[in-house]
């Protein structure tokens, strides 16, 4: 076996009920390289690294680490081999400090926590890699990017030789992303190895030495980054040359559907996080909201749909011929005024996971006359209607009685979309509607939003994906620190300007 391999995975197969997540996968990680693992959601990337980290057990196949055959049965085994994963969403104890989180679970730490020793190490790491963090800050006070830094420090202190990043850029601003990429490079150059999981071709090309592409549980190919082209990678990822263009025409009619005046909203910790926001949403437009997550977007959305009380300010909706104030109305009334909600946290706000597909489609329709008498639900009618929606929106599931929790992310989002579109909404509040979805679902949802806009619906689109915002929006509103830093017509906006507004908050 060649000496410069950190990891060699041979013929790895992993089946889940009804799906082969990894089908005879071969994967090699060299010492000193950043290896991008590229593929759309559901391609089997995460399954593969979960097997390497001991989170899943493989059905068959062999793993060699540092040239020796190993059986990795638990994360403990992986850690002993120097394999660490920086998870997509940080797994830290939020009420403890950074240093305490680093010390937790440290081997041979004894009864008294070796805080001072660890503090010294944290300083060393700061000097070496320029990872800046206040070791005494509590986790809940940190941004997503800072929490990611804590996870990295944790791995480094435990002697990581192989670092795995699972979609690390999703919650990072552009400058933070650059910092992370620089770290990956430096870490690999020191004789370690990095696996970088992503579904973005541009990121894979930017930072890696080699790229392995997976599709539907199989490895399609591995290529040196310097020999790779975007078109080759696209073909490998999707099997075809996917046309991702969207034809969006301008149809803004000038009629105001939603008017927000000087809105102030508190978060769960009772801090003001939306600080005096005012804007209008017109019929037939998509108003994009750009901003790094955690700058008040979540609270803004919740206030608009009625899930969070408003501290100050007013919200109006169009009721046909005049504007009606809905600031204090519950969600039920807002739905009647034509507001539909596509939530960012699909599992928490979008579906009732234990209920069936049919029952989930019924949410918000259950007191409609067609579907219920005074007491009993008309299941026969509901079934007919649900079957139509499932067909129209291509929700793939064994049957209508399947609990929603067994659906894939794309199918869950199509279910939510089907239900919300069935309301004939006038206003759609769409929060991160394509986050984590595969390319085809993403495309389907974007196309649906554009079609609705052309029919005169007003759409507020909150997203972190600047490409998506630029592709779909007619105007882009930038939020930072709970304030609007500017509302730019699409023609005048550029990624650079918006990026600057997002992070610095000022541009001139």
């Amino acid at each position, binding site marked *: 076996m060649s000496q410069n391999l950190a990891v060699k995975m041979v013929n790895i197969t992993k089946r*889940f*009920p009804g799906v082969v997540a990894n089908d005879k996968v071969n994967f090699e990680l060299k010492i000193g390289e950043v290896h991008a693992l590229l593929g759309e959601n559901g391609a089997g990337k995460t399954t593969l690294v979960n097997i390497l980290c001991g989170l*899943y*057990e*493989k*059905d*068959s196949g062999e793993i060699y680490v540092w040239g*020796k*055959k*190993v*059986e990795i*049965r*638990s994360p403990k*085994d992986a850690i*002993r081999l120097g394999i660490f994963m920086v998870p997509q969403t940080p797994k830290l104890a939020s009420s403890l400090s950074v240093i305490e989180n680093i010390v937790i679970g440290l081997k041979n730490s004894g009864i008294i926590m070796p805080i001072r020793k660890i503090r010294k190490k944290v300083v060393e790491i700061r000097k070496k890699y320029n990872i800046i963090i206040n070791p005494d800050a509590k986790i809940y006070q940190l941004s997503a990017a800072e929490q990611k830094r804590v996870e990295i420090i944790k791995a480094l202190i435990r002697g990581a030789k192989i670092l795995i990043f699972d979609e690390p850029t999703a919650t990072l601003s552009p400058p933070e992303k650059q910092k992370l990429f620089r770290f990956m490079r430096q870490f690999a150059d020191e004789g370690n190895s990095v696996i970088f999981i992503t579904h973005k071709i541009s990121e894979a090309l930017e930072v890696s030495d080699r790229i392995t592409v997976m599709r539907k549980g199989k490895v399609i190919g591995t290529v040196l980054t310097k020999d790779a082209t975007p078109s080759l990678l696209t073909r490998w990822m999707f099997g075809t040359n996917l046309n991702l263009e969207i034809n969006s025409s301008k149809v803004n009619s000038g009629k105001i559907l939603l008017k927000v005046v000087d809105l102030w909203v508190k978060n769960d910790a009772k801090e003001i996080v939306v600080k005096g926001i005012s804007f209008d949403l017109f019929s037939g437009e998509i108003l994009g909201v750009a901003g790094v997550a955690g700058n008040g977007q979540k609270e803004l959305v919740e206030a608009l*749909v009625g*899930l969070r009380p408003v501290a100050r300010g007013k919200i109006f909706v169009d009721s046909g011929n005049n504007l009606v104030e809905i600031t204090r109305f*519950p*969600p*039920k009334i807002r*739905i009647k005024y034509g507001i539909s*909600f596509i*939530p960012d946290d699909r599992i*928490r*706000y*979008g*579906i*009732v*996971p*234990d*209920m069936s597909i049919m*029952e989930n489609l*019924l*949410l*918000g329709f*259950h*007191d409609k006359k067609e579907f*219920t008498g005074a*007491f*009993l*639900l008309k*299941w026969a009618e509901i079934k007919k209607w649900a079957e139509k929606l499932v067909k129209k929106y291509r929700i793939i599931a064994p049957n209508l009685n399947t609990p929603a929790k067994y659906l894939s992310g794309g199918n869950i989002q199509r279910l939510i979309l089907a239900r919300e579109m069935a309301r004939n909404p006038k206003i759609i509040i769409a929060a991160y509607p394509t986050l984590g979805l595969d390319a085809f679902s993403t495309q389907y949802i974007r196309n649906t939003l554009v079609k609705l806009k052309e029919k005169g619906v007003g759409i507020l689109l909150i997203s972190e994906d600047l490409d998506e915002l630029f592709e779909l929006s007619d105007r882009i509103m930038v939020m930072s620190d709970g304030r609007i830093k500017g509302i730019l017509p699409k023609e005048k906006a550029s990624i650079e300007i918006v990026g600057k507004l997002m992070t610095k908050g000022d541009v001139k």
Partner: protein
Amino acid sequence: MIRFIIRRREHPIPYSHASLISIFVSILISLAILTMFGINPVIAVWEAFIYPLISGYGWSGVLRNALPLLLCGIGLIIAFRAGVWNIGAEGQMLLGAIVATWVALYFMPDKPSIIVIPLMFVLGFIAGGVWGLIAGILKSKWNVNEVLTTMMLNYVAYQLVYYLVMGPWQDPVTNYPVTKPFPPNACLPKISKTFPVPIPTLIIAIISALFVYVLLFHSKLGYEIRAIGSNPDAAKAYGISYEKIVMIAMFLSGGFAGLAGVNAVAGAIPAQLRRPEQVSRGYGFIAILVAWLAGLHPIAAILTSILMGIFFIAGSSIEIIFHTGVETTNLFIGSLLLVLSVAETLRHYSIRVKFTSSLFKIGKKSSGG
């Protein structure tokens, strides 16, 4: 080196399997403990489970225990399905018993059965419901933890009954802490003298179980209850009122316990209100087990309440025949509770024990989780 490998099952073991296995294992554990006290387990099984049930005399006892358990159990199922942890069926039952006693002895002591008995059940339902509603309002308006409030309201109800049977409602003839016996028109008619199961309660319990099934799975209200209980955030986002559902669920939950309370006085022999522990007899707590063992399904609760009734009879048979004291029923029910709690974890996780010497030699063969 011994290694415990704990893994999440990709598909949890179905609830019904876990329940059946738990029942079996808990009976084995109980018998093992009885054996340690020198009781022959074969004779114990015969005397506790087989003889009372084949001879028929045991069934009236089974049903007399099963009916209040079923009524409390289906009430709890409504609350639990709404995500509200009602621990107060005992107290709600007692309120039903108090109101039934008031109807029988003071409100209309001389009206015919056809009026008195339905009225006792209707007012008993309302009284139990209101007792539950108090906790429901506190929970929905001020987010007060319902486990604490329902529990504390139990003690309030206990004291209320004590006050009545030792104070204003005490039977002046005997001076025991009981009320006068109910007049005959307020006593629930039994199937027969040798099979003293109250007929109205039997009918009401079975109809109630069917009604709760229809309510939960075929009605708009039941849909809202299950949505709120399973994911309140999504349910609220799409227009279901959390406050309203919590209050309705707690009212209905307490109401069914109230029916059990009516039966506990009007169906007793002799029919009267006594000290609270002789009225509610812990049914309100054991009904939690009935509800969980049934997987929160009202039809399955018919079976689990009968099973629990069998445990009551098995326990008292052993107490009488082997002179073990009065804890044998609790032994059966306690072991079932423990085994069921363990089973709930094992449904989701598998545990394997491995003996290994070092990391690189762990098992040549690989196997699925």
